[in-house]
């Protein structure tokens, strides 16, 4: 059988934030929102589920969560029902895997759900559990679980090497919080001023509270199928998965692959592979959701994704080139800084936003968007994952 072309039919989200809900509750909310988005689809026709969640094993005491979620949302998978864990890129990993299965004819209609319940009844456990996010025995034991220290050093390096300023870092937060203003599903719907970001409570200088994504509960879901089935089930313009890449080069405590911490070799490799596979160049991308876990991250991503030259990410963001009306609008739904970051949910939230953009129904619409990109960095910058979507296959 020839490879089939794979489309995302629709997407949904639970409300994201500090939620009075369990992971199983939020997975149901996201799945409902997603099924409501594709009303013609019958649930019994969904033959597979991938559930992207890193922390359900630890913070919800629930391993092998996929069959639990399948039962709760009322589907009976016959192709695949499994959990995916790539921390911050789990959702994107799920979409890549579902694409591969459908493309190969091993599944027909799959729902990919992802998300986390990160808040525990006592807050110390919420933060303490982050020590499991990275190489436990080497980095976790050094207290490098939560990533601000690592990205603080990355920001310092970028400032020294390229003259990036704290104003430029802050501009990322201002833009993304503004983009999230009208997104009711995100964690925050409140704009912040440049002064507020600059003066926010220091976490790991130069990064302050408003340079960091919050800790967030939530789930998101998308449904994928092959082109023929997509035409049957939806009147909307089709959105194809055109090209993907996931690159891991190290585990961080030693063995960083770049020349210095601002040199994201693995991101450039992932970008090159994804652009090649999607048969596009950075200039072809109309809208992007990139992994703004910290303000410095988005600046370096602009460079290593090829939207601007190395070292020019600061001025690129500050001059509005990554804003609506600029060269490439980035994080149009608010990104991680406004929506929050329930790890396994983020790649799916990004995919949902790109699908809405390419179908012309986003809350903050980029006019005429035809090609979109999503990007995640995961762990302590150990892995980069990219998906490129298009109105054409």
């Amino acid at each position, binding site marked *: 059988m020839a490879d089939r072309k794979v489309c995302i039919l629709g997407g949904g989200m639970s409300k994201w934030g500090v939620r009075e809900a369990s992971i199983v509750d939020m997975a149901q909310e996201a799945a409902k929102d997603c099924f409501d988005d594709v009303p013609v689809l019958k649930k019994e026709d969904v033959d597979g589920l991938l559930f992207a969640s890193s922390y359900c094993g630890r913070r919800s005491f629930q391993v092998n969560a996929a069959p639990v979620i399948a039962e709760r949302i009322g589907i009976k998978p016959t192709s695949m029902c499994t959990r995916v864990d790539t921390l911050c890129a789990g959702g994107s990993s799920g979409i890549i895997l579902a694409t591969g299965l459908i493309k190969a004819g091993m599944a027909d209609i799959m729902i990919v759900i992802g998300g986390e319940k990160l808040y525990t009844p006592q807050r110390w456990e919420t933060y303490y559990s982050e020590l499991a996010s990275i190489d436990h025995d080497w980095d976790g034991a050094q207290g490098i679980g939560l990533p601000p*220290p690592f990205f603080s050093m990355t920001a310092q390096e970028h400032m020294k090497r390229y003259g990036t300023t704290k104003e430029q870092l802050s501009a990322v937060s201002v833009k993304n919080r503004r983009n999230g203003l009208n997104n009711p599903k995100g964690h925050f719907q409140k704009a912040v001023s440049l002064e507020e970001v600059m003066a926010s409570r220091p976490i790991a200088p130069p990064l302050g509270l408003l340079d960091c994504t919050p800790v967030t509960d939530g789930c998101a879901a998308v449904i994928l199928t092959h082109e023929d089935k997509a035409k049957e089930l939806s009147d909307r313009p089709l959105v194809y998965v055109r090209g993907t890449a996931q690159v891991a080069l190290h585990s961080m405590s*030693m063995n960083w692959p770049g020349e210095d911490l601002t040199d994201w070799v693995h991101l450039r490799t992932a970008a090159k592979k994804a652009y090649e596979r999607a048969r596009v160049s950075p200039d072809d991308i109309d809208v992007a959701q990139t992994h703004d876990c910290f303000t410095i991250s988005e600046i370096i991503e602009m460079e290593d994704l090829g939207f601007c030259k190395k070292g020019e990410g600061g001025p690129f963001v500050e001059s509005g080139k990554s804003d609506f009306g600029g060269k490439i609008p980035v994080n149009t739904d608010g990104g991680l800084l406004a929506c929050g970051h329930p790890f396994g949910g983020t790649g799916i939230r990004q995919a949902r936003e790109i699908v809405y953009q390419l179908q012309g129904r986003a809350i903050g619409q980029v006019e005429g968007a035809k090609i979109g990109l999503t990007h995640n960095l995961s762990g302590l910058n150990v892995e980069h994952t990219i998906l490129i979507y298009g109105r054409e296959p």
Partner: protein
Amino acid sequence: MTVLGVPILEGLYPSTMDLYPLEAKEFNRIHPFYENLRQKRFTTTKCKKCGSVPFPPRVVCPKCNSDDLEWVDLPTQGKVLRFTEEVAGVPHGFEAPLIHALIDLGEGRKLLSRVVNCKEGQLKEGATVKLAVFDIPAMVVENRGAMEERPRVFFAFEPVK
């Protein structure tokens, strides 16, 4: 009826909540790293077949797949390339400021490590730091019903005075 359950774990050792490695030999084939650390030696494995010296230590050479490895010493002093002082959001088990540095150990090795015995504002880029070994809470291993405490050490770096 009596409801058992474990609302709060009193007097039990939940290893899945332990931020430090399970260093005891029953749980870890690289336990010599920790035994060497106790002697203030910072060590890793060297492949006897192809000569590669990866860190962290392995049980199989990642280059040539040989499992014929030996323990060798790494430098215990290095220079601070960049550092960061985390002042808020420090995880349980650590105190603010939690200082981390990217340390150049020479021989092309860079290590991200915690810096201890150092006050906020004291560290400088280019400063020399050395290996610091300290006791951490013991882990508990059940041996034929008896609970045995296994003392442990761990490492960070500290400024050379």
